[in-house]
């Protein structure tokens, strides 16, 4: 009764502090969504590969762009103890469109499990010269049924469908079969082959080297087999990593995650301090009243329960305000902005704000415990 009555009796005061905490909650949620958006935008393509592990060429982990595995490597990996299946995954740079209206993209080739892409539009049946594009390509004007041209190689790809959550280094991705990827990759590396017969011969040799190869190999393990066991069996020829570890490594990901995480922690701490300091000051202002209530028989536990109820209500209201603000901010952001609200991460952020707010309430508890009910009857010591 006391807790709610007091909140209702001072709507402006408690409303303002709820708004302030709400702003902190929204900041925490927005940074959380940006963090998630950055992670998915930077490495969604790697993270979502259907595999238990990814095998990198020796000494290239975690740089997907530097790794090369040959057809023989993939075959050897498929035969390794504990490995049920291995297939190549190729990565290549690409620029889509004309010089006036071009956008950068990444091309991924899949040697197997080509059905692993979740299709949000069109089809996932990819034939030679066809691609499924990440939905972010639509922001650049791509549509299902379009034929896009990769420059400067001039290779054309027909977009047969859109998938989602598979950007890489913030660029849209184009998913093709491995032979198509090989052609794109070799042409991309060579760029433009001039010089007559020598150039053509070089291109042929390179194409032969890449035949059946890829950038990395995706591995599926037999039941009960661990990554460490397979790594041990393979020796140091390859570096194995889970898709998640591979996704979170390289391209400045650890530093970026640390920076965004730091912002979130600071936001939560500010929220806790806001709650703690607000209720501490409120308790100090109510010293005489608390002393009187103690004098008529209130226990410290009762008064702390009242405080906890108030904090719970206040943070709950702040959560509603913060969520609304974060969603409004997300709705107002441009499509290319890395903003990907994840309910689980938001729930964690809210739980953190609640937890730290309760922690902040300990300041007030200390203050409540220190209030002498005898002071309600006036000064008794001289």
């Amino acid at each position, binding site marked *: 009764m*006391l807790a709610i009555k007091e909140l209702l009796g001072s709507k402006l005061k408690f409303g303002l502090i709820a708004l302030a905490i709400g702003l902190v909650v929204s900041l925490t949620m927005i940074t959380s969504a940006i963090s998630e958006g950055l992670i998915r935008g930077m490495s969604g393509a790697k993270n979502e590969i259907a595999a238990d592990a990814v095998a990198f060429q020796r000494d290239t982990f975690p740089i997907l762009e530097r790794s090369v595995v040959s057809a023989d490597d993939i075959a050897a990996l498929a035969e390794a103890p504990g490995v049920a299946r291995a297939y190549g995954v190729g990565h290549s740079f690409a620029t889509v469109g004309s010089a006036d209206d071009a956008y950068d993209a990444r091309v991924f080739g899949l040697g197997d499990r080509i059905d692993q892409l979740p299709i949000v539009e069109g089809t996932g049946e990819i034939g030679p010269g066809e691609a499924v594009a990440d939905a972010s390509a639509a922001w650049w004007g791509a549509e299902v049924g379009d034929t896009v041209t990769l420059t400067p190689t001039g290779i054309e790809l027909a977009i047969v469908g859109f998938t989602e959550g598979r950007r890489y280094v913030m660029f849209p991705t184009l998913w093709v079969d491995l032979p198509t990827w090989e052609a794109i990759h070799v042409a991309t590396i060579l760029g433009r082959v001039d010089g007559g017969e020598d150039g053509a011969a070089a291109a042929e040799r390179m194409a032969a080297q890449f035949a059946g190869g890829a950038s990395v190999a995706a591995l599926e393990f037999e039941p009960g087999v661990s990554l460490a066991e397979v790594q041990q069996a393979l020796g140091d020829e390859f570096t194995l990593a889970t898709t998640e570890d591979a996704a979170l490594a390289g391209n400045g990901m650890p530093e970026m995650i640390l920076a965004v995480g730091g912002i979130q922690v600071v936001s939560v701490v500010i929220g806790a301090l806001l709650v703690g300091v607000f209720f501490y000051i409120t308790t100090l202002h109510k010293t005489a009243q608390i002393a009187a209530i103690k004098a008529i*028989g209130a226990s410290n536990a009762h008064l702390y329960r009242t405080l906890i109820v108030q904090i719970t209500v206040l943070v709950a209201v702040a959560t509603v305000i913060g969520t609304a603000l974060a969603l409004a901010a997300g709705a107002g952001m441009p499509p290319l902005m890395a903003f990907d609200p994840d309910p689980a991460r938001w729930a964690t952020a809210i739980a953190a704000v609640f937890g730290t707010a309760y922690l902040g309430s300990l300041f007030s508890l200390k203050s409540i415990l220190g209030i002498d009910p005898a002071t309600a009857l006036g000064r*008794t010591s001289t």
Partner: protein
Amino acid sequence: MLEVRDISKRYGSGHTQVVALDSVSFSLDTGRLLAVLGPSGSGKTTLLSLIAGLLTPSSGEIVIDGHAIHLRTAAEAARFRRTTVGIVFQEHHLVHYLTARENLLLVPHLSGRVTREDRTRADELLASFGLTERASHRPALLSGGERQRVAIARALMNAPQIMLVDEPTASLDTDRGLQVVELLKQQVHERKMTCVMVTHDPRMAEHADERLILVDGRVVEESAHAT
């Protein structure tokens, strides 16, 4: 019956020790109103705080109906105040965000649950104090006399055996102060309580059943029942 036996209260130690009460003894029968008079610093408030269990005496005993109440833990003392004692403060200390009726219901709320009987009792008390029309008003909208009457009604909510009243008329003019004291006396007699009222005003003390005057922590004058 309230019995205060050879109570002393000292603050500090050594050269800085202050004796707030020095061997104070008296007894008070049920249904009697005792006025405790004395100048500032005479120990009146300390005496009230000791009887309420808000302070622990340095020596001596406080006994209510044969039960010693001076050796309680803080939690026991709080329960004792919730169930046995009614306190009226000098500054009324009504909770500003609660209405007059809610201030009365605060007492059973502190005990854990507000029953229908509690609500009926609160309404009866407000009626007996002429406050029915003011029941839904917050303290800020009540006059000084009304606030003090609400404070007395709140002190009666738990049907206390002991009523402790601290300068109830300090913020009131003489007429309203006398009305409050008469009201208090009437309640003490009707409800068969034991009431100790601290006041610095001899005119108010004249309306009490018994008087006790403290100076420098000692009893210097007492009426019939003081020993």
